[in-house]
């Protein structure tokens, strides 16, 4: 059956046309009142209303929440407490030792996030660069291999975490392979250092393909005659890499580094499902702290969560400013959201 004659498609087309005609008459009247260029506002309205309600208004409310206390959700019922929330978060004897802080989990999550983000981004961009260099060669099945590295990017964080949780089970396939090599099975996610390692590994596994793709596009933009000229001068492969590839790819590399850092600092889903932030608080990151404080614990401390959001927002703002500077230099626009 052809698509055009499929009854569902026909019905959908009828409904769409009817809806379109129903909207047409009132809009025509509005058009007569407003005039042609200003009817643009009508077209913008739905998008702007939603952005206003769910993005701009919340930014304002977040400040209010951060400076009020109590457990009520509705702003009118929340007592104004000034800087109390921020003071609670920053109440430490020594800032480098989380156990001396009133909110030790907040500081642990900040240290964990910093350690995680640096490790994850440096390793991920390194591997993405190697992968892009390999994929940029004349290689059999290049499109296929590009797809292979890209596939995990599309998977949902929950699925990614479950795939690896299954591999890392105590009776899982990794321990079975180790047993084949006569090694004792390890409880991967119950050991703090191993759990942290696997969070970094799984996060790289899931996101590397995206950065590989951006770097590959950068590599393909390097003019081929530069390499031909270098070959004429019989430059070694290493010299070609360090004198042509690396300098010309540098703008892309910086963009990818900053973009990766912005996303890495916000890591939540994969790690939350993989380790739940544990063992203990070994893999609790800042977004999970916000989620737990505001929503998961029995007492919902919205004010504290909003104050922690402000701290995160400040960090992201700094990173974004760095990104804007580097982006302007490299004349390359890039979005930095996972959710649209």
């Amino acid at each position, binding site marked *: 059956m052809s698509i055009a004659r499929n009854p569902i498609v026909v019905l959908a087309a009828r409904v769409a046309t009817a809806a379109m005609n129903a909207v*047409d008459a009132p809009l025509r009247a509005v058009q007569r009142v407003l005039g042609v260029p200003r009817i643009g506002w009508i077209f913008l309205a739905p998008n702007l209303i939603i952005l206003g309600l769910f993005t701009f208004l919340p930014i304002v409310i977040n400040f209010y929440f951060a400076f009020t206390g109590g457990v009520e959700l509705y702003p009118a019922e929340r007592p104004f407490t000034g800087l109390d929330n921020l003071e609670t978060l920053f109440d430490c004897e020594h800032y480098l030792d989380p156990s001396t802080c009133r909110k030790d989990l907040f500081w642990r999550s900040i240290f964990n996030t910093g350690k995680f983000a640096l490790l994850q981004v440096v390793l991920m961009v390194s591997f993405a660069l190697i992968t892009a260099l390999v994929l940029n060669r004349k290689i059999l099945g290049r499109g296929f291999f590009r797809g292979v590295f890209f596939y995990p990017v599309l998977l949902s964080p929950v699925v990614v975490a479950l795939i690896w949780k299954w591999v890392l089970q105590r009776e899982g396939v990794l321990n079975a392979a180790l047993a084949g090599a006569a090694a004792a099975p390890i409880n991967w996610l119950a050991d703090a250092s191993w759990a942290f390692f696997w969070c970094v590994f799984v996060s790289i596994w899931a996101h590397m393909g995206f950065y590989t*793709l951006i770097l590959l596009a950068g590599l393909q933009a390097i003019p081929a005659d530069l390499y031909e000229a270098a070959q004429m001068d019989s430059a070694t492969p290493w010299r070609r890499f360090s004198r042509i590839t690396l300098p010309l790819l540098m703008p892309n590399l910086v963009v990818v580094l900053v973009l990766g850092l912005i996303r890495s600092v916000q890591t939540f889903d994969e790690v939350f499902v993989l380790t739940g932030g544990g063992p203990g608080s070994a893999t609790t990151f800042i977004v999970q702290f916000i989620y737990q404080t505001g929503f998961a614990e029995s007492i919902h401390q919205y004010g504290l969560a909003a104050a922690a959001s402000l701290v995160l927002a400040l960090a992201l703002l700094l990173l974004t400013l760095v990104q804007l500077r580097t982006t302007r230099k490299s004349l390359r626009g890039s*979005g930095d959201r996972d959710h649209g």
Partner: protein
Amino acid sequence: MASLAAMLTARRGRGKLDWTDWFSYGYLLLGLFLMFGPVIWLVLSSFKTTAALNEFPPRLLPYGQKSVVVAGYDRPLSLYRVTLPDGTTRDLAEVRRIGIQATLVDPKTPEAEYKVNIRDRQPVREFALALGNYTEIFGKFAFGTYLWNSVFITLVATLITLLFNAMAAFALSKYKFGGRDVVFLLVLSTLMIPPTIILVPNFLVVAELGLLNSLWGVIWPAVATPTGVFLLRQYMLTIPDELIDAARMDNASEWRIFWRIVLPLSAPALAVLAIFSVMWRWNDFLWPLIVLSRNEKFTLQLALNAFQGELTTEWNYLLAMTVITLLPVTFVFAFLQRHITTGIAASGLK
């Protein structure tokens, strides 16, 4: 074989493979193993019975215990390889088991019964897919509900995203009115505001609108994507204004121009945005986790998270659910990979 080897090692222009080629292919094969291996392992495991899943070390392929129909017994009996007291081994069907003693019969001559210690019998295995994992999740859990919730959110949010973003992009690309550029910058600036930093106030807004524990509470905040507006605006700028002017001459309303001319002409860009939107909404986790707390409103992602956290995780069902959850994205990947990769390379969005 020789010709295949020659083809594989042939290189354009130059002679043999040097070490960089060996490194490249080695790296790619390792990548293939690391990237696809865990996913394939998940899919294979999802077809195993609970007994096979508990085996250590695990087998690669799903095996189930072989069973035979024996005359005189209603149910099929499980087949075992039995070591008899005289040292011979035979394949026998188990009739019953009491404590450590099992009673077995020969499938061909079911009259004679053998009583053996259960240590002297090993199950006979054959390749078998435990399809029950997939069929039982619909009855045992409200899996159909979770699937429906995910599909509903994904489809409805994508349709609204396409319509709203296209309307905004149309206004931003085809009209010149005061404040247009400010609005465009304002929309783009929301790219810098990740959802993670406005969780608490957004929760309040959704609660005030009465959308908590409603699928619409997930849909509405997600539909005004700045990336979508940007993508569509850039595309609509390439549509010639003459077309629109000609339609105005024919007294078409602006809405009709949008619906009949600009929207159909933007189909390629709409398709790219549709693919992205489907993936975003299907994979969403943190926001639904906050908005949807009632079990019957869970999406697939939330259901997976809830099940994996239970103390007695039933992995055979969890694995099957995970596979179903990754199927749509895998189909998108298999058929539309080129659109996605070129879309990302061109705009840097994900």
